[in-house]
């Protein structure tokens, strides 16, 4: 049972306070919390659950905003954390992003949302679709409307149908002139590659995102060509379990709008689309760096937005690094970032230069880890393929669309 929620700005200022139960939580807890955060320093983020002298605190930090919840009783930690994550998701969805100003400008909406999301410390409705019907988002359209019509209330007059419906994620029967449904496969590849090029670990975390604008109560079935490669799956509450268990078919009545239908994990992948070959040789207080990046396994589509980033070890006095393609920047916090973009046809991008070590040091002992970013449109690297999407009682005009995208998640190369 959560007792209070605070929203703090990135300077520790209390932007919003929502007491949830009869036991008022004094604001001084925020001062304690902020001192604690500062004492931790910024190199180690403090833990998501902290015991203060009086309360247990859950914290979730998003875009510089700290969502802080307090409780004095034993509760399931995931409920506290998940709830705060939902609050931040819903707010950023409502306000079109999160930052200090947007929260301060719309604090009334934030209060209204929190009021519906949690009562007496227990989470209620956290589905953005349903909240949107109770509390209108502060978008330009509704502002214009309110000026034109003179109706200044930003709350719809009716109660959401879904609060009474047996499908809690879907509002009662919307109507569309154009019926559309889009399915996106979005994958992130996590990999760790050792200095000798050996693939230590490689797996894909993927999501199936659906954007549906369908009239009535549409009943959809989505099937994959190769569902057996999935290692583990998690579903949106709308997915029926039995059809998946027996035939690996996703059968569901979708929420209206955008949502995450399922997420999955595929492990033990055998190769990565890119190779990164770092070479560091040090001698007499200097370290020569040479990093090559190239395509290992052509995915058949262009790999773009390639970036490479690494933290220079603290014992380095200065660095002189150049590349034959793209731009190299050394940021203030000793992070070297190399933006490559696409791999050119005629040459292999390489980064080279020297690092000057601290005076007593002969050789470099701490080797940097290179973090790689990339994006491939049109391909799901895990090989997962959508077979077909069917709609029971299809309306006359129905547009279906499929897309795929893979990007680097935690893609690390050690040196």
């Amino acid at each position: 049972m959560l007792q209070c929620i605070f929203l703090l700005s990135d300077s520790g200022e209390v932007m919003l306070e929502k007491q949830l139960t009869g036991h008022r939580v004094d604001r001084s807890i925020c001062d304690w919390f902020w001192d604690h955060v500062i004492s931790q320093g910024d190199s180690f983020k403090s833990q998501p659950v902290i015991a203060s002298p009086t309360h247990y605190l859950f914290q979730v930090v998003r875009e510089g905003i700290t969502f802080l919840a307090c409780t004095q009783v034993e509760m399931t930690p995931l409920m506290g954390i998940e709830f705060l994550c939902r609050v931040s998701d819903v707010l950023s969805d409502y306000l079109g992003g999160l930052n200090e100003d947007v929260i301060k400008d719309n604090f009334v909406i934030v209060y209204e949302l929190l009021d519906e999301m949690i009562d007496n410390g227990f989470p209620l409705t956290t589905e953005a679709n349903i909240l949107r019907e109770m509390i209108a988002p502060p978008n330009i359209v509704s502002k214009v409307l309110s000026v034109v019509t003179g109706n200044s209330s930003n709350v719809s007059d009716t109660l959401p149908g879904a609060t009474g419906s047996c499908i809690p994620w879907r509002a009662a029967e919307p109507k569309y002139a154009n019926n559309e449904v889009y399915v996106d496969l979005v994958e992130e590849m996590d990999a760790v590659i050792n200095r000798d090029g050996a693939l230590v670990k490689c797996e894909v975390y993927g999501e199936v995102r659906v954007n549906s604008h369908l009239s009535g109560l549409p009943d959809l079935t989505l099937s994959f060509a190769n569902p057996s490669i999935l290692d583990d799956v998690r579903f949106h509450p709308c997915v029926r379990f039995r059809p998946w268990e027996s035939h690996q078919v996703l059968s569901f009545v979708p929420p209206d709008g955008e949502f995450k239908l399922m997420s999955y994990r595929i492990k033990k992948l055998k190769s990565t689309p890119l190779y990164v070959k770092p070479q560091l040789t040090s001698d007499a207080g200097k370290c020569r760096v040479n990093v090559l990046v190239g395509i290992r396994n052509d995915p058949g589509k262009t790999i773009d937005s390639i970036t490479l980033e690494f933290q220079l070890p603290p014992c380095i006095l200065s660095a002189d690094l150049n590349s034959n393609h793209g731009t190299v920047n050394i940021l203030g916090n000793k992070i070297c970032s190399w933006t490559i973009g696409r791999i050119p046809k005629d040459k292999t991008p390489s980064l080279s230069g020297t690092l000057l070590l601290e005076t007593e040091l002969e050789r470099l002992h701490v080797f940097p880890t290179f973090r790689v970013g990339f994006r491939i449109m049109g391909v799901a690297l895990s090989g997962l393929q959508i077979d077909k999407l069917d709609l029971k009682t299809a309306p006359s005009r129905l547009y279906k669309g499929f897309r795929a995208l893979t990007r680097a998640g935690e893609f690390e190369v050690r040196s």
Partner: protein
Amino acid sequence: MAPPAQSQRSPSPSQPSGKSEVSDLKLQLRQLAGSRAPGVDDSKRELFKKVISYMTIGIDVSSLFGEMVMCSATSDIVLKKMCYLYVGNYAKVNPDLALLTINFLQRDCRDEDPMIRGLALRSLCSLRVANLVEYLVGPLGSGLKDSNSYVRMVAVMGVLKLYHISASTCIDADFPSILKHLMLHDSDTQVVANCLSALQEIWSAEASTSEEASREREALISKPFIYYLLNRIKEFCEWAQCLVLELVTKYVPSDSSEIFDIMNLLEDRLQHANGAVVLATIRVFLQLTLSMTDVHQQVYERIKAPLLTLVSSGSPEQSYAVLSHLHLLVMRAPYVFSSDYKHFYCQYNEPSYVKRLKLEMLTAVANESNTYEIVTELCEYAANVDIPIARESIRAVGKIALQQYDVNAIVDRLLQFLEMEKDYVTAEALVLVKDLLRKYPQWSHDCIAVVGNISSKNVQEPKAKAALIWMLGEYSQDMQDAPYVLESLVENWDEEHSAEVRLHLLTAMMKCFFKRPPETQSALGAALAAGIADFHQDVHDRALFYYRILRYNVSVAERVVNPPKQAVSVFADTQSSEIKDRIFDEFNSLSVLYQKPSYMFTDKEHRGPLEFADELGNLSIGEAANNVVPTQMVEENDKDLLLTTSEKEETKGSRNNGSAYSVPYDGSSTSVFASQTQIESAVSNPTLAGHSPQASFAIDDLLGLGIPAAPAVLSPPQLKLNTKAALDPSTFQQKWRQLPVALSQEISVSPQGVAALTAPQALLRHMQSHSIHCIASGGQSPNFKFFFFAQKFEESSNYLVECVINTSSAKAQVKIKADDQNTSQDFSTLFESALSKFGTS
């Protein structure tokens, strides 16, 4: 209401900031209050917004209460909401003014818009002003019967709020039974869920005083009700599902087919997108199958994938919470996860608390087949930029080495660490090599060759230096220049700041002397002289002791200081298995994140003696503790070394270390005395444990002085009880019904007692030793309930006791009934005295 003149006065410097703005607002609000002009709502809204934003910044705007209420007569719902918010915030400090709001809130409770009805009702119940509760009952009653589920949902929560303001009003209005009816019959699952959570709270609170409430609470975990909820579980929203699942963990199925039915029904919950649901389901599975060993194993296999996915897919905060639970399971059943070790590899930019958990898991899952790869991975981290993690990973390599898998390869790695020329790596590796040598003396040749090359000047950390010195002393016969290295260390005696190092140096000099007397003699003399002159008490005492024993007889000295050793077979675990079990029982709670059972951290009163409780928890585990005799002592320096392996302060469990290195008691007593480490200590005279600080009782004890404890225990009165009393349950029940309550009182339980009360059985054994027998017991932390009985010695006069112990408040509610009412007071004193000794003996 302040006169208007006040608002025009300029603020004096002593007034808090925002004062003039507040009075300005007051004036503007007052102008708008009566106005019916078009567009007035918009200007009101701007003003309200300002008021609320001041309130949010922390400026006290309570003086506007009257004006705000006056302005709240509006049909604009946003205005209403802002007003509700304001009123809810300030009603408590302005109970008189709050009365003003009742009127308009009550009117809104009858509005035709269900949204307004609900919101008004919620605000009404959130006023939390005790003298206004009479106005709540009516609206709540009609709210519970409202045709709209939104209003009913709000009303149910309102009942709970009312209960917290005034329990009697809530009970008198018979709300619990209305809620019960709604819970069983309402069509809306959110209403059902809210009823469930409200009733759970109300009945739990009432259970101690009302038989009916405790019966109702029991009924919540009865088969029909649990099945009613389970069959509808998919209709509940995700948060309500968590609530239901939590209730199911308390349900005890009658047979295994029921267990399988429940698990089949809930299996798809493991694939829910909400991590809280997944973990709650896992808890149900684990609890249900605790007694079925093979199924329990299958459950581990089944929950593995969902947990690993949760760890890798969620936000960092979520994955940390899940990882903590995974950590718990990995520690319980490492073999289940041994093929998934790659999931525990650390990513570069994970926070260090996550890396630390992962390192522990990697250590735990290491076995014959994966050790090589895990150690290779751990060696990568040793070159990590994050120094604490680099250290931890070297320690992890050492721990794996001590688990005996593929030691050969690991020793090579450790020796490579020594050659890495990084001071912290060298330091950690030295400590590990030392531990390793104690377990595998056969590796000494390989290790000593490398260790011999390390210049003691490059080692600065006390622990590492101590380890190096220990090795120099222990293997001085194999290391050519050991005496000379030690000698140079002795020469720099004054620059050595750590007493630990100086102690080790003394012992190492002695050992070296026994092996290579001619080369060491002069340095030993210098060391002893320096030691005796040392300002540190322990160093001084040890030097003196060595000096005297050497003068007495050199061969005796050798037997005492450097006896032949056996290899250590098992290093002590840092956390008792009982505590781990307790944490496991509290799966899906904060306990898991803190790695401590909740009784150790939830109760503020136990903050201070926390370490203490920990120790007592360990001691109470078994009778064995009482049988350990103080002669089983460890030579001091070995003990110190053992302590370094665990690093943590948790020396409590290390009682087991004693066996490997036992030396005659009289030889080591002084050195143990000197060291002031309190390992064996508590066991021989545990009654002391509860009352005297650790260090001092350790010493009392070791010297065998038997200084009597001065525990604040009441002297037992003259009532004698029959040690072999017998009473059958039906007679007990009968008597309990017939007899009146002779005495009813509240007794505090000592923190030690609370700590020892991990299960009812512990108290039963204790009370039995005081001739008070238990006839029935039950409950779970924090509430335990016991029925005791006792019989007067050589008379058939019975005493019956009902004792409810709440471990979180450390209080026991005791009701005593007696055949012979006259002696009930005596018995009560006896009972209290017995209970107060619980945990200390």
